[in-house]
């Protein structure tokens, strides 16, 4: 009874590809708006990487989930650099200043930077990272809206990814 139009879901999905007009990696230099959006997105990703590194070092009990999400951010940065090769060039780690605010290196309890796998410390780390992911999701969304066509799909995907990360971290935090 479901054997009616075989056009089906698969065909609809394929049709979607017709609207795909993203730029190829070997495009010439991107327009300035795209380069600025890509640089901002790369800074966001580096900040998140630093935040995850600090949280993983401090809360080894969270390494499974956080390590997986950190790997996503490494992929995000790689995807940005593949699409906008200019990013790989002059990006000094001066962005680390901006990244510190992600909240990794500033434990609210001002305790030693050592390992702390207490439930309270883990919950607060998860909450901080979730907030950082939400902020990043918003930033990628803004970037997607301001960029020209080439970078929009990647930034939209990054927006979705960080939204999902925030959701997972919040769920992990509330699960204790």
């Amino acid at each position: 009874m479901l054997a009616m139009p075989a056009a089906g879901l698969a065909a609809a999905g394929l049709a979607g590809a017709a609207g795909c007009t993203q730029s190829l990696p070997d495009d010439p230099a991107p327009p300035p708006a795209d380069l600025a959006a890509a640089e901002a997105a790369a800074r966001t990703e580096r900040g998140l990487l630093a935040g995850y590194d600090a949280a993983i070092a401090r809360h080894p009990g969270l390494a499974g989930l956080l390590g997986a999400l950190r790997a996503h951010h490494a992929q995000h940065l790689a995807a940005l650099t593949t699409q906008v090769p200019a990013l790989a060039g002059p990006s000094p780690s001066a962005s680390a200043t901006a990244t510190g605010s992600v909240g990794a290196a500033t434990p609210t309890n001002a305790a030693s930077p050592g390992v702390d796998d207490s439930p309270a410390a883990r919950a607060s780390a998860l909450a901080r990272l979730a907030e950082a992911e939400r902020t990043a999701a918003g930033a990628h969304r803004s970037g997607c809206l301001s960029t020209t066509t080439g970078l929009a799909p990647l930034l939209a995907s990054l927006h979705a990814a960080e939204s999902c990360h925030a959701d997972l971290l919040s769920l992990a935090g509330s699960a204790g």
Partner: protein
Amino acid sequence: MATTGTTAAASQPAGTPQGTPSPDPKAAAALSALLAVEHAAMYGASSAGGALAPLGAPARDARGLALAAYAAHRELRDRLTELILDAGGEPPAALPAYTLPVRPVDVQSALTLLAELDDRTAAAAYDAVGAVTGPARELVVDALGQAALRALRARLTAGANPVTVLPALPGRP
């Protein structure tokens, strides 16, 4: 009447500074491709909900997800239809039936179906987002984000491992 969800979007002056929409065949084509996927998603979400309906308390969470997914896909369908008309296009109609990627016969398969439907929405949004601007791009980027979230929740509800459940780049082939 003017307060119902579907008519609210007709009050255009809020979002569009240019007032009169101009024909944009590229945008209309991209949005139409996404709309075709949404028609199928509504059919699939409805099938999932129907399969879950008699399954009682153990299926409650899944039923909630099916209902929410149906509502979200319907809302996206309606918004896309308006935007395609604004862009001078002709919105594609739904087909009478679709071949489902998963046959929903129990809670697990219904959740798998819901997740796969939203994977397809995410992929179609990814394909469309670069072809549109302004309010249409906002709609499409949010559609990608929300589809990814729904797929995540469906998989978690089905018992997926949180560490491996997510793709790094939702919607991207």
